[in-house]
């Protein structure tokens, strides 16, 4: 009994140490953001806690980088991508998972091929398309590559396949056509897969750096991620402001994650490494 207790303590010590390592960068981000530049770059004595908790860096960054617009752009991009991805993937997933039609295997093979190819291969032509449409620096450009999702189609197909036949047959006997069956009976049953896909799409869109940098280079049109990259290039030595910006960019997602952590962990984990 005593040995077991010893083990339990040891395990907690290891886990707490590791948790500390994971949290330190975030903590340091927070502490630095509240410091003055001279506090942040003081070596002797090394300053750990800021002398006062002033929001000056946050205010400066908020104003000079117009964070409100960045939040709005990022939120809208996430919203449109999630709506498009969930809608198209659920429809296609239903057809692939529960119906028969000529050409089904070929169509599904195309979905699988898309999942196996590295994403960078699409970027140059996608950029050329957006640019030819005159859509650079527009919301459309940010949403464009995320309008459909092969991975989501696959996820929803699996989810539809797992449903029992009874409900659908009952609906068929009652004279529902495919559209009604899909909309009223089957789609609501895959709610948890839809939520997973929605969270995955949102986090992926939020984290994406390369695409918004390419298509939305104007500060007022871009997303949080790409704006951070720009800021770092512009004032690379004002660490309190850089950390304040990084913190403000991450905070909303972190808060939502902490509240819905179970759904988030499941949603992202189902992605199977496609992140």
């Amino acid at each position, binding site marked *: 009994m005593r040995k077991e207790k010893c083990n339990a303590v040891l395990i907690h010590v290891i886990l707490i140490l590791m948790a500390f390592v994971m949290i330190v960068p975030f903590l340091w981000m927070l502490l630095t953001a509240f410091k003055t530049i001279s506090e942040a770059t003081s070596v002797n004595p090394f300053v750990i806690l800021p002398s006062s908790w002033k929001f000056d860096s946050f205010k400066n960054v908020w104003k000079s980088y117009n964070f409100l617009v960045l939040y709005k752009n990022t939120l809208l991009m996430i919203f449109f991508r999630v709506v498009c991805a969930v809608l198209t993937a659920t429809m296609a997933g*239903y057809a692939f998972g529960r119906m028969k*039609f000529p050409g089904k295997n070929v169509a599904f093979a*195309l979905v699988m091929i898309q999942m196996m190819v*590295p994403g960078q291969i699409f970027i140059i032509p996608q*950029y050329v398309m957006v640019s030819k449409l005159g859509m650079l620096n527009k919301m459309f450009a940010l949403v464009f590559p995320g309008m459909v999702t092969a991975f989501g189609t696959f996820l929803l197909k699996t989810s539809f396949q797992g449903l029992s036949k009874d409900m659908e047959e009952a609906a068929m006997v009652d004279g529902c056509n495919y559209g009604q069956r899909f909309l009223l009976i089957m789609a609501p049953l895959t709610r948890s897969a839809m939520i997973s896909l929605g969270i995955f799409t949102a986090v992926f869109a939020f984290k994406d750096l390369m695409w918004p940098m390419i298509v939305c280079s104007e500060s007022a049109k871009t997303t949080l991620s790409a704006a951070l990259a720009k800021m770092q290039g512009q004032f690379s030595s004002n660490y309190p402001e850089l950390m304040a910006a990084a913190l403000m960019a991450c905070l909303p997602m972190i808060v939502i994650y902490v509240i819905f952590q179970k759904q988030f962990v499941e949603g992202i984990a189902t992605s199977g490494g496609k992140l």
Partner: protein
Amino acid sequence: MKRKMTKAEKTEARWCWFFIAPTMIGLVVLNFYPIINTVWQSFCETGDFGRGNTFVGLKNYIDVLSGGEFWISLWNTFKYALIEVPFSVCIALVLAVLLNRKMRGRSVYRTIYFLPMVAAPAAVAMVWKWLFNQQYGLLNHIFGTDTAWISDPKIAWVSIGIIGVWSILGYNMVLMIGGLQEIPRDYYEAASIDGATGIRQFFYVTIPLLSPTIFFIVQTRIIGALQQFDLIYMVMDTSNPALGKVETVVPVFYRYAFTYGNKGCGATFVILLLLVILALTVLCQKAEKKWVFYN
């Protein structure tokens, strides 16, 4: 096979095409046309200011393969993967085993370990760059050293690898916990009856039974590591003397295609990357047959 479709089958097929049309049209426009276009692009030379495309055959491939940059960046990519994949997988495995029991604070630990997954890589890179700062960074202060973590060509690749491990650890761990929960308890009971305790159980029961999950994670992480962009782009300035020892394939592709506007060479880089990934996938499938235990 050439029988006529019944009316019901026709209706079903029509509905199907309606359901899959948005996805299929999207995939063709956004993915399949771009694949073909990128292949074609890799045989073409882009004119000045990104204007005009002339077919030049294999010239891009010859240029890219005979120049040093592709091979160096590929070697850097492997170096990065060599740190990120084994370390993130092993640490995640240990953490998953420790967390896979009834205990206090389990979900708190999981939430903390998983946190980097929801942070923007740009922000993560910024804070690590600050932690690694030679003069004012926290790390040099804690260890009392004066290490140039990210500008010393000898160690910069390790530093980038550390950030990679830190970023992906929690994700691997969550997948491992999922795998661990599928191992039936009987195996452990049988092992205890045979006298195997903690460590032996880990090596003789957990590892073999978890090998499909481990294999899946290793494979997807290798492919993911080969596509690393954000960290290197954000942490390594263009003026950093260690850049050449760290820059992986995708950042080099980005530089060619979008900074220099040389789409031909950029396309060649991604096609070559695709080939490397395909080759590795085939290798992984071979390795799977040999090492992975399915019951």
